[in-house]
């Protein structure tokens, strides 16, 4: 039992593997396969994230928001989730979305500004990510309310940042979750920045997790650079949700080890010394240290991983390169199920395009 053991009001934080790669209680760790899987997936999403950055710099993607620093949160949550769990992400959860089944190529296509990337696999319980900060958590709560109404077992993970907790819709989502006992895990990645604004200024309380007390359910602070702690906490919160125990709030404390997006320049407002300090806590390096020291990970494993990851990314980039552009039908076709009144506008656009292509 992790929940209930760490009191945010007392400044307690849950961590399993510290920044030096040392495990606190080896006996409580997941098995070796799981540890290796967590590590491999962190490497993978970091690589795909780095690739997205360089694709953006080449002009092949539009503005892109990197996730660097949050690998452990996303991988931990991905492994904690079961097949039927729902995911309600923000724009920052590209790694988590991929691990839950969204093809890498879709992610690249979407950030390239191609609507076709927004088509996730049919049947996957992943909502399109939300750009208006703080607005998506209500949908997660609503999904859970619906499951309660239908008497279905369900659990939902919704992700958002420290900044999002200032929005009124966050409050309404938390309150509804408490009142209706919605089986929702509120997963807040406190990467300490909302663009340039420090999380310590976002609110006057020392933690974000303690806000859960205002809504009558549990909140916990977790080391968000520790994939194991994240995996275990989210697992427990989801199990509780599935069993009718209602919502949980998890504050994953990390640090944004990148610009806010490719349009940002964090050097204007980040302190290099602080950045270095947090870089030393790198979630990927940390777990590798543990695995290596525990003799679970060898050079050849790393080499194979690198090759596999590269291959997956190359394939996605190839799809990006050969993808069709959206057609006028793609732009008009999803405004309503059926909307004959739009037909003339679609015809107008197609006519203009055709006449342009004929040079008159």
């Amino acid at each position, binding site marked *: 039992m992790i929940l209930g053991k760490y009191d945010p009001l007392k400044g307690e934080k849950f961590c399993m593997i510290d920044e030096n790669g040392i495990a606190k209680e080896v006996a409580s760790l997941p098995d070796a396969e799981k540890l290796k899987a967590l590590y491999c997936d962190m490497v993978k999403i970091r690589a795909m994230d780095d690739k997205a950055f360089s694709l953006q710099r080449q002009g092949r993607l539009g503005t892109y928001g990197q996730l660097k620093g949050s690998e452990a949160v996303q991988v931990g949550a991905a492994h904690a989730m079961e097949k039927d769990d729902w995911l309600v992400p923000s724009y920052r959860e590209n790694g988590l979305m991929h691990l839950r089944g969204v093809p890498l190529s879709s992610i690249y296509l979407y950030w390239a500004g191609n*609507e*076709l990337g*927004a*088509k*996730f696999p*049919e049947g996957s319980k992943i*909502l*399109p990510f*939300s750009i*208006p900060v703080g*607005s*998506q958590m*209500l*949908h*997660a*709560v*609503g*999904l*859970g*309310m*619906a*499951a*309660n*109404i*239908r008497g279905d077992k369900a659990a939902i993970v919704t992700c958002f940042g420290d900044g999002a907790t200032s929005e*009124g*819709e966050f409050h*309404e*989502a938390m*309150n*509804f979750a408490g*009142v*209706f006992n919605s089986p929702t895990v509120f997963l807040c990645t406190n990467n300490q920045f909302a663009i340039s604004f420090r999380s310590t200024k976002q609110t006057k309380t020392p933690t974000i997790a303690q806000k859960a007390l205002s809504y009558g359910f549990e909140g916990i602070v977790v080391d968000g650079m520790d994939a194991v702690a994240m995996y275990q906490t989210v697992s427990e919160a989801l199990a509780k949700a599935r069993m009718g125990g209602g919502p949980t709030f998890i504050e994953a404390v990390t640090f944004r080890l990148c610009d806010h997006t490719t349009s940002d320049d964090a050097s204007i407002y980040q302190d290099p010394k602080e950045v270095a300090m947090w870089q030393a806590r790198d979630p990927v390096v940390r777990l590798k240290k543990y695995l290596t020291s525990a003799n679970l990970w060898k050079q050849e494993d790393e080499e194979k991983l690198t090759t596999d990851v590269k291959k997956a990314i190359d394939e996605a980039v190839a799809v990006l390169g050969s993808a069709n552009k959206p057609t006028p039908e793609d732009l008009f*076709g*999803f*405004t*309503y*199920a059926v*909307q*004959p*009144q*739009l037909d003339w506008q679609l015809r107008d656009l197609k006519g203009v395009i055709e006449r342009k292509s004929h040079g008159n």
Partner: protein
Amino acid sequence: MAIKSNLDAVNDALRTAMKKDDRVVVLGEDVGALGGVFRATAGLQKEFGEKRVFDTPLAEAGIVGTAIGMAMYGLKPVAEIQFMGFIFPALNQLFAHAARLRNRSRGRFNVPLVIRTPWGAGAGALEHHMESTEALLTQIPGLKVVAPSTPYDMKGMLLAAIEDPDPVIFLEHMRIYRAVKGEVPEGHYTVPLGKSEVVREGKDITLIGWGYMRHLAMHIADLLAEKGIDAEVLDLKTLAPLDSKTILASAMKTGRDIILHEAPRTCGLGAEIAAICSECGLLSLKAPVERVTGYDITMPLRMSEKLNIPDEARVLEAVDRVMNF
């Protein structure tokens, strides 16, 4: 057929929908035990239980946002916003999500959500309780907006709205909640969304209205008939997407059009209708399209609100102008 008020027609539609489809749920402020401040949901909680008919905390974004989630889960939520003037806190959810999730997910999700809300002036209510802000909603692609004005349409269109796969804002005019009664069939039937209706044929002039204004228009048409003017009355019924075909057919037939609405004039829905009429029917117009509307001011309080709403005198003067252009 039973004679019912608009209010009872709403209640009837909800009950009919809930019986037919157990995915239909009703939520909002005070919709449960109280049955809504107007009693539109009276008796539903008792009949269908607290799981399917429930009160929510006082938070409009919360109501609409969670209803969006429920709709994506596969339910058919019918959410009440207590008065149209209080829909603003929910606009972000409507604009950023309800209207876009189909598009954003490439059709993988849709949002079969109905938002019912009382609107319009003339009932002598408090500030913010007599707003007509339909044109804020009609310009958002992805939303449907309907405003029936008779019990028959009220029931049939609410049933159609609940069955519609996309989000529908369902406006119920307060002034005619109880004042207007009419025949309402038993059981299930639908009146299609997306269609306007010529509710009185005429050849000299077209009066276009919705909600209470449709009834004012009918009254004016009677007065005009005595003067030998043959007025056509168009009940808009669906405000978005607009049924341009029906609007234009009538506008071009009579060549004289007056649009009535309670909302402020500037950028009201009347502007769009006027624009369409002159765009597509310029040569058929025998006079400029007139708009008789609320003024561009904050809705006055109870004692003066009627000064701001189109009334017989203002419409008749507009008719004079149009007929004598």
